[in-house]
């Protein structure tokens, strides 16, 4: 292993070069020598060295000047300065310029040996760190937004623009369009990417627990608080806080959130000590927050603080050209996860997917592909596996001769066909509850 470590010794004295080379070679290192700084620069320009032992006093370019040039041009080399005459000034200058250490000849063999091992260990850690970061970067590239439509390209451009800053971003769009993916893409492209991304689904927080979840609490702050707990704001410190479904936040929490965003500090429940927090805020909503502001259900000041930059994710039906890529991506992901050898989709099946309305957007498409993947018998997903989708889009007839009731019946039938007569999904698409849908089906005599 040591033979992979390359050491250069730069000293004008032959005996120093020879003795040190011999001594370090006994440890198994690959050692080369240079008589002058000029020769050393030539060698370093051609070969890669891990560390260099450089004598300070040399004719021509001296050791300190060589150190400066190495730090300027080949900063990865660790340089240890050597001198026969101990001088604090020299040592200070060398360390200022960036020397790893400074040795006065003669050295204690144990000390030098340990120093070389320490340099190697540190370099290995640094290299490992770089490798890990590269692996993370590679992994992060999987958090990408799939699509080639102009709408998606525009979103990617916006993500790229806004990621580098610390600006708050409000992401709008229907349910299932991929707002969280956009938030993740922003976080992982930002300078905060190695810090946490904390996702808070505001709509999923139980009413009574919103405050404790966000702010955390001290032990004994309330019944059941047996231990102190950090809240989401603290957990996101240094990173990004993604507030999903922000429109569901109640009035009190809107005020509290606004205060945190303004003052950049929080106080845990049951504590009177404020804690500084530093995070970037991303928020998303499928509701029209501007309308909510006008209605008085969402604070205007909070809206403007969150809506510094706005990204709108269009529904899937407005970017049908992205469906092939999305399908391909989902299939390859499922193939990796399950090992099932489904390689793609037939042109007919893809057409069927393109013709579907996708009220549930990308999430619905993903579920449909997964369902078809599971039941697929061959290497390709066929229309047979997509039978649960309506065979084709049934045009809505809006003839003026039809009554309102007739149009309603037709529309309910169409929606139910598209949803494969799944009552819950149909009710969601129609924007009514299941009981109302059952009643209407009964009224119009609609059966599966």
């Amino acid at each position: 292993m040591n033979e992979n470590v390359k050491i250069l010794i730069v000293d004008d004295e032959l005996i120093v070069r020879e003795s040190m080379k011999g001594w370090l070679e006994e440890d198994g290192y690959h050692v080369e020598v240079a008589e002058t700084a000029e020769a050393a620069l030539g060698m370093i320009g051609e070969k890669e060295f891990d560390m260099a032992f450089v004598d300070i006093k040399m004719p021509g370019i001296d050791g300190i000047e060589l150190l400066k040039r190495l730090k300027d041009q080949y900063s990865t080399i660790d340089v240890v300065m050597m001198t026969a005459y101990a001088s604090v000034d020299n040592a200070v200058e060398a360390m200022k310029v960036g020397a790893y250490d400074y040795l006065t000849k003669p050295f204690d063999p144990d000390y030098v040996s340990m120093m070389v091992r320490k340099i190697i260990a540190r370099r290995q850690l640094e290299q490992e760190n770089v490798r890990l970061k590269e692996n993370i970067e590679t992994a992060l590239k999987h958090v990408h937004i799939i699509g080639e439509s102009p709408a998606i390209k525009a979103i990617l451009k916006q993500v790229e623009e806004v990621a580098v800053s610390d600006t708050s971003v409000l992401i709008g769009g229907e349910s299932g369009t991929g707002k969280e993916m956009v938030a993740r893409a922003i976080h992982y492209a930002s300078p905060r990417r190695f810090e946490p991304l904390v996702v808070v689904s505001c709509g999923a927080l139980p009413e009574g627990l919103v405050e404790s979840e966000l702010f955390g609490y001290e032990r004994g702050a309330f019944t059941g608080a047996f231990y102190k707990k950090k809240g989401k704001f603290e957990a996101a410190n240094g990173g990004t806080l993604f507030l999903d479904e922000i429109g569901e936040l109640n009035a009190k929490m809107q005020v509290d959130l606004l205060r945190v965003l303004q003052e950049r500090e929080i106080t845990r429940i049951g504590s009177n000590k404020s804690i500084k927090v530093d995070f970037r805020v991303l928020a998303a909503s499928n509701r029209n927050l501007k309308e909510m502001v006008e209605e008085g259900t969402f604070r205007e000041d909070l809206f403007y603080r969150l809506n510094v930059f706005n990204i709108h994710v269009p529904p899937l039906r407005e970017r049908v050209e992205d469906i092939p890529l999305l399908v391909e991506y989902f299939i390859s992901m499922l193939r990796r996860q399950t090992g099932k050898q489904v390689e793609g989709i037939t042109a007919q099946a893809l057409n069927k997917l393109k013709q579907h309305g996708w009220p549930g957007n990308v999430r619905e498409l993903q579920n449909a592909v997964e369902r078809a993947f599971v039941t697929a018998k061959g290497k390709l997903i066929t229309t047979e596996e997509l039978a649960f989708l309506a065979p084709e889009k049934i045009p809505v007839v809006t003839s003026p001769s039809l009554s309102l009731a007739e149009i309603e019946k037709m529309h309910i039938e169409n929606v139910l066909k598209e949803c494969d007569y799944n009552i819950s999904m149909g009710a969601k698409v129609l924007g009514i509850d299941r009981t109302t849908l059952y009643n209407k089906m009964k009224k119009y005599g609609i059966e599966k």
Partner: protein
Amino acid sequence: MASKSEEKIILAPVHFPKEILSRHLFETLETIFKRPVYIASPKLDLHPFFDPARDQYQSTAILKHFIKTTPRGESKICLLVKEDLFIPVLTFVFGEAHMYGQFAIVSSHRLREQFYMREENLKLLEQRLLKEIVHELGHTFGLVHCMDDRCVMHNSYTVEDTDHKNVYPCEVCFAKLDEVL
């Protein structure tokens, strides 16, 4: 290609008490290096290599001089001296060798108990000397320092390190040595 009869180990004491070199020392070296061990008395004046500022002898220069004045051959020659040795960048060395080379040098100066103000112990000195000779000769056969602190090829910075290690190489170093013997 040298004949087998030329492949031998020569211990070359320079003003060095030969009585320390016991039969056991010779046999052990023969066992490890699989070749006969002889003794020779080279005419070598160490004075030119003395550094009065350090009160030590420069081992690299001694070896260089010895190489110049000794005909090349297949034997491994280990000089034995009682003087304190140094290489210019280090405070001291127990010995020095040429990697894959023909020559090595070992000093008994810091292997003696008297150096540490303790009572002389000839048996211990012989053990330490044997370990350092095996170590330096190991380098001439291309062995590098070993991580195993019980292996004779582990680097010694103190006599305690030397005392801690065995006379023999570890399995890994033995296997490497066997490849070149």
